[in-house]
């Protein structure tokens, strides 16, 4: 009797296309019931480097506006720097949709924080720690948010700059970079960054690094934004391009020496 009832149940299940997964309880196609749960993703639309430095009045972040689809520079107006609340700026490299999701989480966090309306507010340190918890927990579930994040802010005169990535590695520093910026920009930061740079000096340093990235990072586009956060608040510049130079001797008369043998 019991065996027959169980057989019926299996048949019922087979008739439905989607059933509850025995392990997660979530919706699952019947045909995948016996396959292992696997979430590891691949990024689809990605942003490249983000740079961040502390300066006299606060923190400066820089990124370009490119969203690559594999090797195609598909989207050229993706804003990868976003303000979070009054005290923080967030920049992201990696999967753009995951970044949008993170911004949604943080906006909700800041909303509830504001709703307390009690004179207390979450500063950059708190947001950074929250993000770290988020990223690390996702990583532990083998379903990461495929991003490297740069978080900068000022609260009560204290400047803060930190980074978190998709596996939950996080730290604070005076200058940070993601992606290619780690290899191309940070050596320049190490040589040229110093405490209490002025805004102009900071922008110049960032533009210098963005130029190197533009030349050498194939996923960089020449449309960038610089964001600044100070005690007064956050501002993100309008997009602009930087001048590149191609007048190298070696580039002139490219056909010279192109003698063919057949």
């Amino acid at each position, binding site marked *: 009797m019991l065996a027959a009832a169980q057989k019926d149940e299996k048949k019922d299940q087979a008739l439905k296309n989607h059933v509850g997964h025995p392990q997660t309880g979530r919706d699952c196609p019947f045909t995948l019931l016996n396959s292992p749960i696997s979430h590891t993703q691949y990024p689809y639309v990605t942003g490249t480097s983000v740079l961040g430095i502390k300066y006299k009045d606060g923190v400066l972040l820089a990124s370009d506006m490119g969203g690559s689809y594999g090797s195609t520079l598909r989207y050229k107006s993706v804003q990868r720097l976003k303000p979070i609340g009054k005290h923080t700026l967030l920049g992201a490299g990696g999967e753009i949709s995951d970044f949008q999701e993170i911004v949604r989480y943080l906006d909700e966090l800041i909303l509830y924080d504001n709703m307390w309306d009690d*004179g207390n507010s979450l500063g950059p340190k708190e947001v950074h*720690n929250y993000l770290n918890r988020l990223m690390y927990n996702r990583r532990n579930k083998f379903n990461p948010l495929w991003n490297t994040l740069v978080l900068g802010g000022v609260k009560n005169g204290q400047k803060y700059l930190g980074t978190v990535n998709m596996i939950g590695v996080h730290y604070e520093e005076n200058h940070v970079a993601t992606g290619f910026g780690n290899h191309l920009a940070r050596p320049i930061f190490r040589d040229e960054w110093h405490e209490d740079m002025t805004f102009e000096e900071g922008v110049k340093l960032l533009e210098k690094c963005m130029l190197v990235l533009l030349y050498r990072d194939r996923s960089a586009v020449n449309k960038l934004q610089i964001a600044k956060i100070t005690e007064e608040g956050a501002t993100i510049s309008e997009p602009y391009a930087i001048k590149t130079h191609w007048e190298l001797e070696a580039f002139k008369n490219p056909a010279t020496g192109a003698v063919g043998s057949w």
Partner: protein
Amino acid sequence: MFRNQYDTDVTTWSPAGRLFQVEYAMEAVKQGSAAVGLRSKTHVVLVCVGKANSEFSSHQKKIFKVDDHIGVAIAGLTADGRVLSLHMRSECIHYKFLYDSPLPVGRLVVQLADKAQVCTQRSWTRPYGVGLLVAGLDETGPHLYQNCPSGNYFEYQAFAIGARSQAAKTYLERKFETFPECSRNELIRHGIISVKEALAEGKLNGSNCNVAVVGIGEAFNTLDSKTVQQIIDSLEDRADEPPVDVAPVEGEQGAVQDDTDQAAAPMET
């Protein structure tokens, strides 16, 4: 209060718009021994009288450290107080884990009040029978709150709850305007004096009087009984008026003083 037909459960309103069970719960608070809290611009002090069951037993623990920056004094059903303290500790540590930052007192107090409110609207849980004085420090400075079984919370400059708290409050009312400018030690003395007023019988001494402080630059800690005894003794050496002079016992953050009650209180809890 007299028994009436509307006081059987908390989900029954009286025709006058009262919830008697909640009010009875607040009576339980009034049965507990006195707890006093007072605050200055830099510190908050909690002082309590701990009853002892008998000569052989220890004195009631009425002050709980919730986090480095928050502590609570209870009056009423001690068991309820303990459970709520545990809950508060859990909330604080959870916030710390998420944000690497201390939970603002005001938010903890509201969460606690909301928790108490739930019990005033269910027929299967009774209201908590404990009143809490929550002392804490946050971004906006030192704060003192009172939490009631009714789910209400209030912020105070100084307050007293429990048995004969009115006597303590009378003293506080006389002096509270001076509290914002008081030093840490002056504040402690005011607290002990006001709690003395609430003592019915027996003498205040280092064992039955619990004192705890939290302030800017000072984590929440309970003073040890020896220190408390010394302060109590020094009070008896002079009139009820806290001295305005800078006698060594009451010393500020000075360097050379043999003021032992000024010594940094050990981190007891």
